[in-house]
């Protein structure tokens, strides 16, 4: 049997996966195993598939994904901590024909930016919000987040979140779903290949629906933080499944009436 060379393998007919051209060649700074990279990729693929690059304006948050604009080959703005929905509100109102998204973590969206989140969704701003919930502050080094589970450990609750002292985790997606201005609200995850495929379908809907001008599309992605959680990537995904998902169950919270 003749030996197969690398050049013979790298042929168009053998192509099973390629990086979206909406992703730049910049190496991601995220920790190995982190869900951010996957979430970025899904959004990039949807923008590419729907041919939206020239119409897209994205807003990056403060948090681990603060440098998102280095990875996405679309026009982007960097917001102050929590204010992405305010930026996106103005962008969309001034340029209603564009596709406008924010990408925010739990601290950004559900703590410091709660007012902006609630009011943008309640006004029914025609924007798409991607919300990455990993129950912890990743960038600043593992502090308690608004979404940290009861008894879950973080650097500012080293003995676990005592809800009597530190308050309860906030299910902001559930709140968003009750607002008359939200149009499509769903909770997804990217910790298994099956969930990645589902999440991509949800993101695609959340992007496509923006054209309908019916209100805010909101996708929560329950994700991991193996560094902050102090676990291996595999353990973190298992912990996510066993602890995060019972508290933050996956599925649609609000779907358009067809």
């Amino acid at each position, binding site marked *: 049997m003749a030996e197969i060379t690398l050049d013979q393998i790298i042929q168009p007919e053998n192509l099973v996966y390629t990086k979206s051209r909406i992703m730049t060649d910049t190496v991601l700074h995220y920790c190995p195993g982190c869900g951010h990279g996957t979430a970025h990729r899904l959004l990039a693929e949807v923008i590419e598939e729907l041919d939206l690059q020239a119409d*897209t304006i994205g807003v990056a948050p403060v948090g681990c994904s603060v440098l998102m604009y280095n990875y996405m080959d679309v026009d*982007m703005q*960097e917001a102050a901590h929590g*204010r992405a929905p305010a930026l*996106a509100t*103005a962008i969309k109102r*001034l340029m209603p024909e564009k596709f406008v998204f924010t990408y925010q973590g739990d601290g950004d969206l559900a703590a410091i930016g709660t007012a902006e989140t609630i009011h943008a969704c309640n006004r029914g701003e025609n924007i798409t919000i991607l919300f990455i919930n990993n129950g912890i502050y990743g960038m600043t080094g593992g502090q308690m987040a608004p979404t940290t589970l009861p008894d879950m450990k973080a650097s500012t609750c080293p003995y676990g979140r005592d809800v009597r002292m530190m308050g309860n985790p906030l299910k902001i997606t559930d709140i968003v779903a009750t607002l008359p201005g939200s149009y499509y609200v769903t909770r997804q995850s990217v910790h298994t290949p099956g969930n990645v495929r589902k999440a991509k379908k949800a993101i695609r809907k959340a992007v496509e629906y923006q054209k309908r001008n019916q209100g805010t599309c909101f996708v929560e992605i329950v994700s991991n933080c193996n560094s902050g959680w102090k676990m291996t990537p595999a353990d973190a995904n298992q912990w996510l499944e066993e602890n995060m998902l019972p508290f933050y169950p996956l599925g649609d919270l609000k779907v358009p009436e067809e």
Partner: protein
Amino acid sequence: MGELRLMKGNEAVAEAAIRAGADGYFGYPITPQSEVMEYLMAEKPHERTGMVVLQAESELAAINMVYGGAACGKKVMTSSSSPGISLMQEGISYIAGAELPCLLVNVVRGGPGLGTIQPAQSDYFQAVKGGGHGDYRLITLAPASVQEMSDFVKLGFELAFKYRNPVMILSDGAIGQMMEKVELFDPVPRSKEILPWATTGKTPDRERNIITSLDLDPKRQEDFNLKLQKKYGEIEEKEVRYEKIQCDDAEYLFVAYGTSSRVVQKAVQLARSRGIKVGLFRPITLWPFPSKEIFAMTGQVKGILSVEMSAGQMVEDIRLAVKGKIKVDYYGRMGGIIPTPDEVVEMLEKKIIGG
């Protein structure tokens, strides 16, 4: 001659915004400037020019809406009064750091804290020394009439886009609330130009545009700061504005801006009726401050009295400007009290002439 109207200062700002071709206004109600948004909403600018007007959930949201709109290269603005402007400081710092053009209007009321709703000039430091974090500057225009409230909206947008820098109109409750005759400028259509740096969607003919104030690399961050400082230097060279009233034969000088400068004009008349040769130097740009022009007066006048509705803020810049060559003192009132012309003349006599 443009259309003549009798308007409140706040209304003049709103009408001028529509006429200047503003694309968006984002604000939150606060006394004494709420008429700005009330006027805009009543005028239906969306029908007149397509301008977007939105009442935000807070000043924090409003200033960040301004950021979002400005980053698209749009002509956007907000207005507020002192406590609201304090809340906006983070956003203003980001806007300066991202080099975005926009117009901010502060109809100042007395502080600190909730203070009072009556007029004051106690936000001078906040406006001209940088109220937020970092080394940045706001071009600060100080209107002294309802006419200037209107004119400076247009001028403010021009300067903001010329230098890609936020511009603040530092007014006060008296000018916001009072009505005077205004000659309105002719409307300018909203710009359709797509600015090369703005986030309007990455087209194949260009690289993606990123609007950010973040750079974690120290060298690049320092270079960026140096570039900002160079821009500020250019603005200091080219954009100083001021007015001199009865200064030609003056032996003494008042320096005052905004509402205080109006009171001082009356004080000048009063003093001259008593034989005191005094003039008024009115800074129109508070930053860049007319330091050279005030220094130039030191060869002519024997002393300067700064008259302010504050505990004495601008007086520090006057002292820096005159470099100790002549006596500089301050007289002011706080808490929403406006000094009277009689008090001002009395203080000139006591602190400068007799002092």
